[in-house]
């Protein structure tokens, strides 16, 4: 997949680019609206990651250019927290998702994958990790061919883990991904342990391998044995 990241902060843009390059994607950076327009005219992207506050204007203004120049593109807006006006305006103008800073890279990865999948596969897709199969349309996970009965949270957890396979996911990023705003005022994320435990148990019960590794008490990693 081909991504465009429009972000004026060099270090942040670089961190995002590095992450996606590492996972084998093509990503181009632009630091302002002018540069972004230039890139948009000469390339077709699957997704644009768009910062709102740019030195030569608001990222919101770029949405119409993106829609004009790109045939099949997802737009993910990045912005400072609590700027609700931007959120509503952005989504109204055709942005597909909204992420507030600071964010976990695994969360960005998860959202980007979901958006790209939506535009490329139109929802008709299945994610595989060895014998684990996740059908997104049915919201159903399988071990080989046998279905696992998962709660909503467990399904989201599995999807998040598989989407970010081979990465250490901190407890914080998992809790925020699963509970969103509800855990904003909590500082202790040990409650996710129960969900991890149950997910692990259910996969093992269907004869799946335990790919879930605990990492030094800071989080979890889903990876090949």
């Amino acid at each position, binding site marked *: 997949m081909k991504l465009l990241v429009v972000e004026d*902060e060099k*270090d*942040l843009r670089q*961190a*995002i680019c*590095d*992450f996606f390059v590492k996972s084998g994607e093509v990503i181009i950076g632009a630091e302002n609206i002018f540069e972004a327009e230039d890139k948009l005219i000469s390339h077709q992207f699957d997704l644009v990651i768009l910062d709102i*506050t740019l030195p030569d204007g608001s990222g919101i203004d770029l949405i119409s250019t993106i829609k004009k120049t790109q045939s099949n593109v997802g737009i993910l807006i990045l*912005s*400072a*927290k*609590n*700027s*609700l006006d931007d959120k509503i305006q952005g989504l109204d103008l055709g942005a597909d998702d909204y992420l*507030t*800073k*600071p*964010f*976990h*890279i*695994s969360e960005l990865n998860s959202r980007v994958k979901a958006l790209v999948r939506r535009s490329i596969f139109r929802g008709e897709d299945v994610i595989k990790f060895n014998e684990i199969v996740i059908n997104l349309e049915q919201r159903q996970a399988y071990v080989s061919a046998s279905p696992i009965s998962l709660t909503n*949270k467990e399904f989201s957890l599995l999807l998040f883990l598989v989407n970010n396979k081979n*990465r*250490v996911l*901190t407890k*914080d*990023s998992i809790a925020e991904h699963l*509970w969103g*705003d*509800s*855990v*904003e*005022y*909590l*500082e*202790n994320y*040990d*409650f996710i342990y*129960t*969900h991890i435990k149950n997910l692990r148990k259910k996969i093992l019960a269907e004869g799946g391998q335990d790919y879930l590794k605990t*990492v*030094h*008490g*800071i*989080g979890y990693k889903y990876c090949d044995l």
Partner: protein
Amino acid sequence: MKLIRQTNRNFAIIILIVLPQASLLLFVSLDHFLSDEVDEKLKVDELRITEQLRSNPNFISMAPIIEVKQLSKKSAGKSEIKNVFVYDPIEKEKELFRQLSSIKRINGNWYSIKVRHSIIENKDFALAIGLTMIAILLLTFAFLLLLNYRFSKKLWRPFYHNLDVLKHFSFSGKHEIQLKDSKITEFQDLKYSLEKLTNKLQSDFRSLKEFTENASHEIQTPLSIISLNLEEVLQDEHTEENYKKLYHCYQSIQRLSKLNDRLLLLAKLDNDQFNGLSEVNFNRLFEAKLEEFIPLLNEREISMNIHDTGTFIHECDPILANMLVVNLLSNVVKHASTNSVCTLDIGSGAFSLINETSSHIKQEALFERFKKGNAAQSSTGLGLSIVKRIVEVSSLTIQVELAENEFKLTINKA
């Protein structure tokens, strides 16, 4: 009370005080003037009678107006004027007359001459004039009052219009205030001053809002960079000790960004930047949020007991309502004792959360910023300050009762 009504009332009071006094003065002076006229006339009458008596000694009396008597002997007497009651044969009753009585020597004979004039008529006359005057005055005043009211109303109309516009003025509004012109210099000055003031307020408010947003952006961006890079560093293999250190850094960054968020939220609350009002059903909101929170509560072996006695519907910003409920439930998760029961009492006018707690904080310090129930916890200490501000801007009231190991928080409609 309206200004016009107040001035008119003052005007009316002055009239009510002045008018009786003026009428009294008018009546007294008229009366006095007429009495003088009567006395004058009596003196002239007496002179005429005396002249008549010189040529014709047998002057005929005309009681009770003229009484002339020839006296047999000289008797001393001064001429005097006084009021007397005399029987009037025509009116057939005793009436009040003004009487001039004197004793005169004419052609060697002594006469007693009494001339009278009815003063009842005078009094009636004075009264009639007085009443007419009062009526005229009253009519004039009433007319003036009405006219004054009408003119004032027209004069003050731009003022009241502008006052109305000002009442509906909002700092966060995008449009400049539109005030009406007036011919009155003072009103026009007021208009210019108000326009200047409100425009300044709006631009200050805008720059404050922009500042909070920019500050948020400026702080969040470096935090994002640190956080993203730390996450990447965490991907690599490290010694156990370094892992711990890195994770501590990572957690501190998370905490810092939460702190930043909350301070900005408080700033926005202080600036009244949440005004998307709509009707919020708190029963439903609690229900939805509890679905998320039940696993978190269960984790700490806290069971939730819901007492539903009515529907709490309140007009407020839905984002704030959401924050309020999340904040309160998070508080329960954080501070309720393990293996205890939390009760949510919800009725149409109030809802309260009661839970057991072991954390100790003084009631007065509860809502203060950066006060923590448990110093060891890595909380920001802003949760309840946010609750308090949300409650205040949403026209609700909050009450906290701290008893032995029990914490009760009640939110009422203001």
